[in-house]
């Protein structure tokens, strides 16, 4: 009675390639000598990403629900999200390639003889690359999954590697490991909620697939309590991943503790994947039940925008500050979920790309500001950076301005299109709160600008390291994207428009 599942490999090619790359990376890690290991890993990771992207381009016009026995959808949105994840991951890896950031030997006790020798002899372990690829594959699967199981699996596949990666910092290892622990415990906790929620949705609808759930809701002959618990707990899982208030508490700690390149990677790619899934779930699965969930998501989006913006003001650590700004942006993105219309989807597609580039660039810059003991993230020591290295500081300001949503940067167009969509769907309150909280956020971004440029430098040993070629390329790309998408957004907006559709 069982029939062997039929997989459409050509449509699944992108994600398979990435997974393959990951496995290959594991083998390399196991068998290749330390001399060429790092190079090989880098080549493999970047290569597989490029290949996968090529595949994406090949299948960009394909549409199918049956690629993997109805559990993934190949549609505009999923292709766009996969593509986005790949591009951002590519840049992320360019930052990661700067091995100096990572523990030579994660298993070694901090400060132990073992560790020291590992560093001296250059026995640098490079498991970071395969881990990244695994995470990427999960991130690609998450937005395309159409049933609860696949969603859960994807969620874990993208989370588990990140838990580990968060702990791999070379310096301040205690903090890094603590970040890993917190991220892991809370992450697992939230996925428990996710799973429990899925169980109840299944109980309500008798089906695991989003479409099945949607039908059940429209039919309306199920136990509403189950639906209610299901929606609530599922949302908890998702909102945790996107870092929405009140499920955001992990974000600042983890962002601060994790190695900065990883933070950037997380901040950008996880948001893309998580919002991909969230949008699909709410647009495809739960749209019929919008009267149940719209109010709470609205409230949460408002809370998230406000808390993110306000909390950022008092931060003294640049990574924590960026964490809160990413929380605020999660709030803005949620307005796209509430909008629940094509405009909303299109806006979200544009926004995640714009935000991804900007945030990667910002964290990329953070990796460059160091003293003898490694990165300096204490804002008070960033004072006067504009004098020491105007170019770097200027680029950072560019990213901040984009975060603040000032015109002629991608951030502005993103905000505009999101608010526009929300207004169209009649959520005017969200728009008003949105604009006001961006005003508040602006205050915080300006404070940094003042520190960088208008305050006399405190002459201590903070320096800006000459960025490695790859970092330089990465930052340049991010900066260019931020400007181009701000000045001539049609490039992306039109694409987003064509890809802004879900197959149900």
């Amino acid at each position, binding site marked *: 009675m069982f029939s062997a599942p039929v997989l459409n490999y050509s449509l699944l090619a992108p994600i398979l390639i990435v997974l393959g790359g990951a496995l290959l990376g594991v083998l390399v890690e196991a068998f290749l000598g330390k001399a060429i290991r790092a190079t090989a890993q880098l080549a493999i990771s970047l290569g597989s990403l490029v290949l996968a992207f090529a595949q994406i381009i090949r299948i960009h016009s394909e549409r199918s629900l049956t690629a993997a026995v109805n559990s993934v959808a190949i549609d505009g949105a999923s292709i766009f999200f996969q593509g986005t994840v790949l591009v951002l991951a590519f840049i992320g890896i360019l930052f990661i390639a700067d091995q100096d950031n990572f523990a030579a030997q994660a298993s070694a006790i901090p400060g132990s003889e073992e560790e020291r020798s590992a560093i001296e002899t250059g026995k640098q372990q490079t498991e970071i690359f395969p881990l990244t690829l695994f995470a990427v594959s999960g991130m690609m699967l998450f937005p395309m999954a159409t049933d609860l199981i696949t969603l859960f699996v994807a969620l874990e596949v993208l989370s588990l590697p990140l838990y580990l990666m968060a702990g791999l910092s070379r310096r301040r290892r205690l903090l890094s490991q603590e970040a890993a622990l917190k991220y892991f415990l*809370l992450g697992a906790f939230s996925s428990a909620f996710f799973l429990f929620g899925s169980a109840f949705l299944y109980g309500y609808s008798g089906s695991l697939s989003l479409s099945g759930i949607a039908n059940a809701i429209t039919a309306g002959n199920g136990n509403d309590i189950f639906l209610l618990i299901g929606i*609530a707990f599922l*949302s908890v899982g998702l909102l945790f991943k996107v870092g929405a208030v009140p*499920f955001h508490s992990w974000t600042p700690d983890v962002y601060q503790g994790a190695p900065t390149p990883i933070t950037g990677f997380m901040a950008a790619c996880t948001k893309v994947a998580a919002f991909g899934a969230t949008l699909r779930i709410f647009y495809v699965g739960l749209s019929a039940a919008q009267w*149940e969930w719209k109010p*709470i998501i609205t409230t949460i989006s408002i809370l998230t925008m406000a808390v993110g913006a306000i909390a950022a003001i008092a931060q003294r650590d640049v990574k924590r500050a960026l964490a809160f700004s990413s929380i605020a942006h999660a709030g803005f993105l949620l307005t796209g979920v509430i909008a629940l219309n094509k405009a909303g989807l299109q806006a979200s597609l544009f926004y995640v790309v714009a935000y991804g580039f900007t945030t990667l660039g910002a964290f990329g810059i953070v990796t460059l500001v160091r003293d003898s003991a490694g990165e300096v993230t204490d804002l008070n020591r960033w004072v006067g950076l504009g004098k020491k290295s105007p170019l770097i500081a200027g680029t950072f300001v560019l990213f901040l301005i984009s975060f603040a949503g000032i015109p002629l940067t991608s951030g502005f167009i993103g905000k505009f299109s999101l608010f526009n969509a929300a207004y169209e769907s009649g959520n005017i309150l969200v728009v008003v709160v949105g604009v006001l909280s961006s005003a508040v956020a602006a205050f915080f971004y300006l404070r940094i600008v003042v520190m960088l440029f208008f305050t006399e430098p405190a002459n201590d040993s903070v320096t800006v390291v000459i960025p490695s070629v790859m970092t330089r390329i990465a930052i340049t790309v991010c900066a260019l994207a931020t400007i181009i998408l701000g000045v001539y957004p049609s490039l992306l907006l039109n694409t987003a428009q064509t890809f802004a559709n879900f197959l149900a």
Partner: protein
Amino acid sequence: MTTSSHLVYLIALPLISAALLLLLGRKTDKWGHILATLVSASAFGIGVSEFFAMQGRTGDARAATQKIFSWISVGTFKVDASLLLDQLSICFVLLITGVGTLIHIYSIAYMSHDHDRRRFFAYLNLFIAAMLLLVLGDSYLNLYVGWEGVGLASYLLIGFWNQKPAYATAAKKAFVANRVGDVGLSLAIMIAFAQFGTVTFAGVKAGAPHASTAALTAIGAMLLLAAAGKSAQFPLQSWLGDAMAGPTPVSALIHAATMVTAGVYLITRSNFIFDGSSTARLMVVIVGGITLIFGALIGTAKDDIKKALAASTMSQIGYMILASGLGPVGYAIAIMHLLTHGFFKAGMFLGAGSVMHGMDDEVNMRRYGGIGKLMPITFATFGLGYLAIIGVPPFAGFYSKDKIIELAFNAGGTKGIILGGATLLGAAITAFYMTRLIVMTFTGAKRWDEKAHPHESPILMWLPMAVLAVGSVATGFLFNSGNSLVNWLAPVLNSRNEVGGEELMKPIVVSALALLAVIIGVGIAVGMYRKEVPVVAPEKVSVFTRIVRKDLMQDAFNEAVLMRPGQKLTEGLVKTDYFAIDGLVRLVAGIFASTSTALRKIQNGYVRSYALIMVGGALALIATIWVVTL
């Protein structure tokens, strides 16, 4: 209406020369004063030729106009920069340019020691230009430009020696007081536009009969306010005394002969407004009446010769205003007194200047005495002016002032009695303080210390004085013979020939009374000041005297009622701005900051509390959905 093409030169010439002298600066020091004087003289020439051209024309053709360019045109609000020279304005043109030229000449000598003389003459030319524009403008807005222009010139000239703080303050005071008046003028123009859709004299005159009395009263009141500001009438009179800070020729030209009389011009020019509103006329009369007594009283207690003359100017203009409030013929009489006063008062100021010149700028009459012998010409010219102002027949002042007193009595009923009484009283007091002035200055024993060497002034100074003296002798008779002036002005002021109103008493009786008043005044003054005059003003004097010395408390009043409250208000607002308005903004910022810190505290680093927050959140979610779905 004749169209003329060269009226504009009347204004352009002095204006250009003023601009030249100011722009080229020190380069023109050598010949600047010559140029200015010539320009003023040539303006007078044009005036005279225009006058005779006018004589040649008859009826409506007498008035000449010239459109220079279209100035403002927005919607229905159209104002051309165009000039109107009619029977009224020609009188002023001649007075301004004539007396002006004389004073230019006088100043050449008077200012010869001042190394900024060139700037002084530039200002004088600027004044001439502005004053001519004032009287030649064919609409209220053009008049306004000249109106403020003379204000500016007056400000610059009062403050000519503005390195002395007191003088700078005096200049500022004059400007501000005038501005208060300007509010009136602006509003009058606005009401006029709202009523008639135009601001030209012709347009308003045509519209006036159709307008409501209320509107006319409003316009009239506002015009009166303007006049009060410019002509130092009650309640805006206080600046004139301080304005004597300016060089004496300025006091003669601007603050005696011409500018301060602009208010009278404004009212007479607007006769069609006041004809339509008895209320407005009443206000005019009241203001005039108060001021003429007010000024006269102040004059009695002044030891500063120029301030005494200034007070007298204020009082004399009071007469004019009063007259212009007394119906059609009143306008003409007012103008007559204005012209005669222009001559004798300017003459006396120049005389005072000549005295100061001789007494190295001493102004305190208590330090004069017996100067008459040393400065015979000055004494003579001054004396003629004196006889003119107190109204001794057949000198100029007699004719004009006598007419005004007569008019006042004929105003009818108690009003007539009061006004007549006031004018008579004024005449008596005038006689008193002028005699006091003459006696203290020219007669008696010398009270100046040895440093001063009184000497007669050079010809450049006494010649103008002489000319003006002739004027103060002859003009009255000239204007009065056969009502020449009244008839001349009739087309503009529609002033009828005879003195209107029911006669209370025969003109001859009025003249007798007036003469009596004068004799009394003179008598008292001689009685009081013929004997020794103390060099320092006696301290033990009646309250009344003290109050009068303090200019009847006018400054004290302004300070208490306007200045101090104003300063308090300003300080209050500055504080409000910082603490209330900006404070509110800071408060909001503060709230955000503290909220932020609070949020930071929540982030306490304990996984378990984070988990707790999450659980709470989850429960909150369920709760809300529950509520929503219910």
